[in-house]
């Protein structure tokens, strides 16, 4: 059954789209990630215009993050104060990101920028995750405990704030900067940025692991909602119909994924996710490097 998307102006198979949302939902439920970094490139492969894929991806993330954060609020694993500080940076970053996006759209390079960002970030994150989880498996066999790292310089900055839930007393500058850079990426790549935010919170800000996911989800809701609004009002590229099918598939998949995730080992899960991320990255990189079958591209004005 085909469905005509009013904004993307293409006709796609509704079951394929629903399945895509569902599979990404299962993965996001299993691994605790938003799944935006998979949905947007997969939409490119399906022939959805990149600008629509990015903007609609942001909308889909709002749904999956709300679905996720509710569980964290129940468990009281959301640091609201840290979330708000990150959000302040995130909103500025999102506005900056949409501005860069529109500038490059006028120059005809937005497609390249989005793909490049994906290749670079999926490559880095996938690679790091793969190495780290392989190491963790070896360590768990040897029985050694993982060491925790400390970053002294973060504690030397001014504007100190107390974050009770995280048990931290640090400067507000690093969280604002983390929020800002993730906001820029979120707007350009159509992702929530959880896959960058989570390691940054643990390693850069030194937050305890149990509050990281909930806090990151909390601020992602607002940053991606803001991004959706900016894309909707400046580019007119949010496709409600596309978002709705993806969301329906995604929320159902996420619940199934959560049930699956509890039965698998954490390291194996992470290796699987890392391989998947590297696979998507590889496909995108290949498209950039090999000679395209069609050297010309049409852009309507």
């Amino acid at each position, binding site marked *: *059954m*085909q*469905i*005509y998307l*009013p*904004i993307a*102006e*293409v*006709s796609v198979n509704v079951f394929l789209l629903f399945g895509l949302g569902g599979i990404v939902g299962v993965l996001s439920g299993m691994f605790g990630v938003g799944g935006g970094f998979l949905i947007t490139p997969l939409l490119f492969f399906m022939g959805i215009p990149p600008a629509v894929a990015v903007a609609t991806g942001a*909308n*889909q993330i*709002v*749904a*999956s*993050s*709300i*679905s996720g954060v*509710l*569980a964290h609020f129940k468990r009281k694993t959301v640091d609201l104060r840290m979330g708000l500080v990150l959000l302040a940076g995130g909103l500025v970053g999102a506005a900056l990101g949409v501005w860069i996006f529109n500038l490059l759209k006028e120059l*005809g*390079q937005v*497609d*390249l920028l989005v793909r*490049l960002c994906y290749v670079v970030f999926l490559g880095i994150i996938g690679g790091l995750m793969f190495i780290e989880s392989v190491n963790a498996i070896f360590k768990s066999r040897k029985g050694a405990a993982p060491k925790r790292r400390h970053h002294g310089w973060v504690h030397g900055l001014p504007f100190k704030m107390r974050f009770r839930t995280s048990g931290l007393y640090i400067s507000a500058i690093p969280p604002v900067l983390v929020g800002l850079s993730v906001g820029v990426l979120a707007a350009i790549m159509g992702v929530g940025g959880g896959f960058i935010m989570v390691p940054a919170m643990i390693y850069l800000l030194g937050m305890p692991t149990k509050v990281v996911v909930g806090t990151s989800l909390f601020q992602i809701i607002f940053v991606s*909602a803001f991004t*959706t*609004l900016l*894309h*909707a*009002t400046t580019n*007119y590229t*949010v496709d*409600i*119909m596309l*978002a*709705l099918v993806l*969301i*329906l598939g995604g*929320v*159902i998949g*996420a*619940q199934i994924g959560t049930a699956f995730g509890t039965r698998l080992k954490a390291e194996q899960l992470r290796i699987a996710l890392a391989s998947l991320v590297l696979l998507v990255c590889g496909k995108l990189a290949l498209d*950039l*490097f090999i*000679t*395209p079958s*069609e*050297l*010309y*591209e*049409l*852009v*309507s*004005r």
Partner: protein
Amino acid sequence: MRVLAAVLLLLAALPARAEEVVMGLSQSNVSITTDFDGSDILIFGAVKREVAIQEEPPLQVIVTVEGPLEPVTVWRKARKLGIWVNAEAVDVDSAPGFYAVATSALWAESISAVEDLRHKVSIPRAIRSVGAPMEIMDSEAFTEALIRVRERQGLYRVEEESVELRESTLFDTSISMPANISEGRYLSRVFLTRAGKVVSVHESEIQVGKVGLERWLFTLSRQMPLVYGLLSLAIAALAGWGASALFRAIRSG
């Protein structure tokens, strides 16, 4: 008497009027609905004449359907630092979003180059490109690419010998429109030709537009983008919250 003679003389001096084409369309509206998956339009007609059928040179029919004209930028990629990037651009002033030509004979037998130029029948004639930047020497390559890309998308098509012409009088053909066509006023033209010269032309309009939910969403997104954005967020929030509430209810029985 003099007036009557003048009229007769005038009629005799207008052999082009001897044959006239009349046409009909299976539908003058194409509605883009939620399940829109392309559309076939049947174009038919007849040749009206008051004289006996002239056998030689044979009568030919050309049918065209043209979508709304719009400016397009054609980018050419080049390898820079190992990766393929959009390097050069040519602005095409106006190109139809959709263009289909169907003929009753081979193209060369249907219309002469001069008549093609005058009536803008073939695809390259339907595209208007005034100037390319100074540094681009091969601007034709960009126009050719535009045609090639759109032919692959099914938006431009040339179908020779696909018009059925019976007894040099009745004709019909079917033009298929893919699902990725744009909205607007489409123009359908029928040309009667003899020995490559256009004898008669008839034009008709086809309206292509989104209807129902598709129309409503598209209009809302353009005219009230903030409301549209908030609506999409509300749907997302409701779906996110609804799903977790629903599954919690299922789990707790």
